[in-house]
């Protein structure tokens, strides 16, 4: 079978992690980097090959088959069992391509970015670990395997955010990232337990026809009907609980607080984990459970929609006021992931024969499409930001300005990615965002217009960032010691590759969308698994393009000049609003209050006190009582014969009296 080698996709990064983790410290930096990069190149080749084979294979009734080359029982548990395996279907294959591409780019880029850093080997080891876990997550054949790799990506993210472990902010950020996502994972776990208990299965076999590979154990059909019979609320409850887990990982409001802080990690890591791959795990999870959502919990999907809308708006608003370029990008990521969530949520229930209806569930395709395009251009933006930080040794926009002269490649690639995220035709972001807005409009015009507005905000803050970095006044003072320079080839090459993908995909899908050609994204991934031809709705496309161009013009007008009188006036007019947005509307402070004041001070400390003073005190009291009792009894045993005689006499008299009375 052509998918026989697919296990190598997981095994190679694992091996390189083990080799680098165990023997890395004794290696040269270059050797370690090469081991990591080579194994990842192989993984990328395998992924492309798998994708090619998968998408060109014969379809049955026009539907892509779900293929399970490997699946074995790892741990049997009564009527349930934990399985491990590999599942190939359109979304997992698409994710394979995204993850391996971005990861390979980051591996190459890190040669330049991390050059001479202490712990270079450790860095590459963690990158391999992360890639392995992320690939395992998307290839999971069952919800339990997904959860397991979900935890592993969480840990690799923790380790990578805390890469600069001597620095306090990095420690705090890594801790926060892990604990916040762990908190969300608790809900995910309860969701899995509920799902597993009521359906007697963890597997994703509900998703359609499954072709088993050789040597695999067959799935036990998920007994969804049993769960529905036990109570109609059970499946929706389980799904919403799982969604909370996904919301934690994908930084949805109000669990988003960890993501901006996660920018303390090395910039390539932010590009890989906190922009392109790990943070979309929540989106992927909903896409994976999509058949269940749409069949059994269509009402509950409005939760996904509104969480997404609020997050998208909130993050876009905050992004307009940040001054740290990585924070702007982080909030932009949160906002864009929320777009994907909204897209999945606005899918409407509907059937087309036995399969789902591609048109009603346009959002599914749109969300996945945006996941793909966003991964490419956002990784490019982050890697570009890395080049800039490398050049000016700071994250602050105030220290930048006028960099376009010094860094032409970074400038052009950054601009292209900004145009893509803003949704300008012929750049990849346009096609995917347009589909999202079309899907939203069909769901409800209110959501549609809100999302259009947020898309306009996106264009605005991205160009604010762009002008702040590359135009405006050059900060001569900051550059006095060290003229900014273009990054080395290892760093610019990934930028170029990602940009080529962005433009290539953008040009083709834009033309295909207007002309109604096939072979666009919808031909690969769609709700029903059939070939779906994307047709742009000209009205919506035109509206959103005009709005995007208008907000770019607005940003140009405000931020392009040497001085920015309008921006300054805006700050002065609304100082409180600006401050609140800069402080992220005090979300962090609220959480800080809840965790430190309430949980630590009002729960943990009293419990610890109670333990030491009440529970332990009781036992100490018992011991003390026994001791005191012994002491007081001891004086009776004084050895003084006269005392004994007195007691003897008293006793005899008392006894005689009692007996006489009776």
């Amino acid at each position, binding site marked *: 079978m052509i998918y026989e080698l697919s296990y190598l996709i997981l095994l190679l990064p694992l091996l390189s992690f083990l080799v680098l983790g165990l023997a890395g410290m004794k290696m040269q930096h270059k050797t370690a980097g090469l081991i990591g990069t080579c194994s990842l190149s192989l993984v990328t080749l395998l992924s492309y090959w798998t994708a090619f084979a998968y998408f060109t294979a014969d379809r049955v009734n026009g539907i892509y088959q779900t293929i399970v080359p490997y699946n074995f029982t790892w*741990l049997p548990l009564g009527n349930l069992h*934990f399985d491990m395996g590999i599942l190939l279907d359109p979304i997992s294959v698409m994710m394979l391509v995204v993850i391996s591409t971005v990861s390979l780019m980051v591996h190459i880029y890190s040669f330049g970015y991390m050059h001479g850093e202490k712990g270079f080997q450790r860095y590459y080891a963690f990158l391999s670990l992360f890639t392995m876990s992320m690939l395992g997550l998307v290839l999971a054949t069952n919800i339990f395997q997904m959860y397991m790799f979900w*935890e592993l990506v969480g840990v690799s993210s923790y380790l990578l955010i805390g890469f600069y472990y001597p620095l306090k902010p990095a*420690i705090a950020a*890594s*801790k926060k990232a892990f604990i916040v996502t*762990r908190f969300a994972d608790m809900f995910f776990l309860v969701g899995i337990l509920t799902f*597993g208990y009521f359906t007697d299965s963890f597997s994703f076999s509900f998703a359609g026809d499954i072709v088993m590979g050789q040597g695999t154990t067959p799935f036990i059909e998920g007994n969804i009907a049993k769960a529905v019979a036990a109570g109609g609320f059970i499946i929706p409850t389980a799904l919403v609980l799982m969604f909370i887990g996904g919301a934690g990982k994908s930084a949805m409001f109000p669990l988003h607080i960890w993501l901006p802080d996660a920018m303390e990690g090395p910039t390539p890591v932010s590009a890989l984990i906190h922009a392109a791959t790990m943070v979309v795990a929540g989106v992927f999870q909903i896409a994976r459970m999509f058949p269940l959502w749409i069949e059994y919990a269509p009402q509950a999907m409005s939760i996904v929609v509104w969480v997404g809308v609020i997050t998208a708006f909130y993050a876009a608003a905050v992004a307009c006021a940040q001054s740290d370029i990585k924070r702007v990008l982080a909030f932009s990521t949160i906002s864009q992931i929320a777009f994907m969530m909204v897209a999945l949520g606005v899918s409407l229930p509907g059937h087309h024969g036995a399969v789902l209806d591609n048109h009603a569930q346009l959002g599914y395709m749109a969300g996945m499409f945006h996941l793909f395009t966003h991964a490419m251009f956002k990784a490019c933006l982050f890697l570009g930001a890395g080049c800039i930080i490398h050049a000016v040794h700071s994250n602050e926009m105030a220290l930048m300005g006028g960099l376009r002269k010094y860094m032409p490649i970074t400038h052009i690639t950054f601009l292209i990615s900004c145009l893509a995220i803003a949704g300008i035709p012929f750049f990849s972001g346009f096609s995917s965002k347009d589909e999202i807005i079309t899907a939203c409009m069909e769901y409800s015009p209110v959501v549609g217009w809100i999302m259009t507005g947020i898309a306009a905000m996106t264009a605005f803050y991205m160009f604010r960032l762009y002008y702040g970095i590359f135009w405006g006044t050059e900060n001569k003072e900051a550059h006095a010691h060290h003229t900014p320079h273009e990054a080395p080839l290892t760093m610019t090459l990934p930028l170029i590759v990602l940009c080529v993908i962005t433009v290539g995909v953008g040009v083709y899908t834009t033309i295909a969308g207007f002309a109604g050609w096939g072979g666009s994204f919808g031909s690969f991934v769609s709700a029903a698994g059939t070939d779906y031809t994307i047709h742009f709705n000209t009205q919506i496309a035109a509206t959103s393009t005009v709005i995007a161009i208008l907000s770019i013009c607005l940003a140009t007008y405000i931020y392009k000049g040497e001085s920015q009188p309008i921006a300054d006036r805006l700050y002065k007019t609304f100082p409180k609003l600006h401050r609140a947005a800069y402080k992220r509307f005090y979300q962090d402070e609220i959480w800080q209050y809840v965790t430190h004041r309430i*949980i630590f001070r009002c729960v943990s400390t009293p*419990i610890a006190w109670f333990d030491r003073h009440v529970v332990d005190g009781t036992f100490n009291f018992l011991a003390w009582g026994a001791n005191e009792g012994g002491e007081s009894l001891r004086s009776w045993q004084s050895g003084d014969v006269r005392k004994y005689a007195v007691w003897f006499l008293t006793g005899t008299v008392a006894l005689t009296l009692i007996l006489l009375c009776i």
Partner: protein
Amino acid sequence: MNILSLFVLIPALMLLGLWVARNVNQVRGVMVTGSSLLLVLSIWLCYFFVSERSAGNTDEMLLVASTPWFEPLNIAYSVGVDGISVVMLLLSSIIVFTGTFASWQLKPMTKEYFLWFTLLSTGVYGFFICTDMFTMFMFYEVALIPMYLLIGVWGSGRKEYSAMKLTLMLMGGSALLILGILGIYYFSGHTTMNVNEIAAMHNIDPDIQNVFFPFIFIGFGVLGALFPFHTWSPDGHASAPTAVSMLHAGVLMKLGGYGCFRIAMYLLPDAAQDLSWIFLILTTISVVYGALSACVQTDLKYINAYSSVSHCGLVLFALLMMSQTAVTGAILQMLSHGLMTALFFALIGMIYGRTHTRDIRELAGLMKIMPFLAVGYVIAGLANLGLPGFSGFIAEMTIFVGSFGAKPLAGDPDTSFRMVATIIACMSIVVTAVYILRVVGKILYGEVENKHYLELTDATWDERFAVVCLIFCVAGLGVCPFLFSDMISPAAGNILRSIGVM
């Protein structure tokens, strides 16, 4: 002679060898030889057990033998193992073996220390191989008494207080235990002390069972850190020397869970079904309460001791759920907690041996000074908070899956009681992350604050060996849990069938 008797014979010979040993090297030689033999023996036993089972031997207990030693009370030296005891013996051997290396450089009175240490392990091994209530109790006592001396003499801090507290509380538990054992003996017709025979007779009046069940469950529960009888644990662990903490948290606390299952629940099945919900509440409290308490401790060993309260609480919690999966999870959790906690205490001991403080407020930046120990600590921490690939994850997941699906029993206040308790227990995974990462961030990361620490050295070979062995075992259990669950699950099933819940 029955092969199982080697588990007490080898330690007895080691005691003899230690007695005649004249210098430290001879002492070490005896310890290494003995503990390696025990390790080999228990690995062989696992192998033997698995091959017997796959050959179709379905007896409840293997390698059964019995020799009476006090006829009037029908007390016999009866031995026999099922899947649960086999894995517990393996755990004990690993801990004894690594504990030897962790206390390689212990001074003073090395010989005396190892004498008591070996005596303690004799008790542990004896407890796990026996199937006679009274003999088990005897070995249980043999394991407890040396603790007093090991902590009182070689401990640190408030060692006399802690040693006394630990001994008194555990002895209090023993007092309840002996009452319970005698109760079972008399009300089952005073014909035998053998656990399997009593269970097979199943003739104790349910009302009588309800009287004695709390005695035995609490008696063993004290050792298993059942709330509110767990308070010996923080003080005891904090004062104990490294290897003793390892052995205590790693193995001795498991005696509690094992006893609760093998004696209390197995022999008093009706009471177990009626009363389990009361103890479930207590253990659920243990799980969450232990974790929350650990969040604000400042002494490394206190943090770990409270963490043990939480994790051992989960063991009793899962046992009381009385579903095959949950009980399998409980035994896996015993193994996992035993290995992880031993690893943790070993590392804390090594760090303390260098810095002479365990106060997390005084430690910082250890990653730079002692990278090996620090990396070990991070791995131990991640294993403790349930990182997939290590044992904690698989044990916790098995427990949660098993408990969530546990059948409601007649005595339960509500049919969804067990589900709700599981959800509450799930909260501990978040709190665990909080206290583990707090410590890791505080003591390992950051800049070195105390300049004297810069002169400290990393682990020596014997320490490295102990740490690597334990990490290997933790990872091995995490990657190949099926090897062990296949042994445990049928044994758990046998007992649960005898209880009547399956």
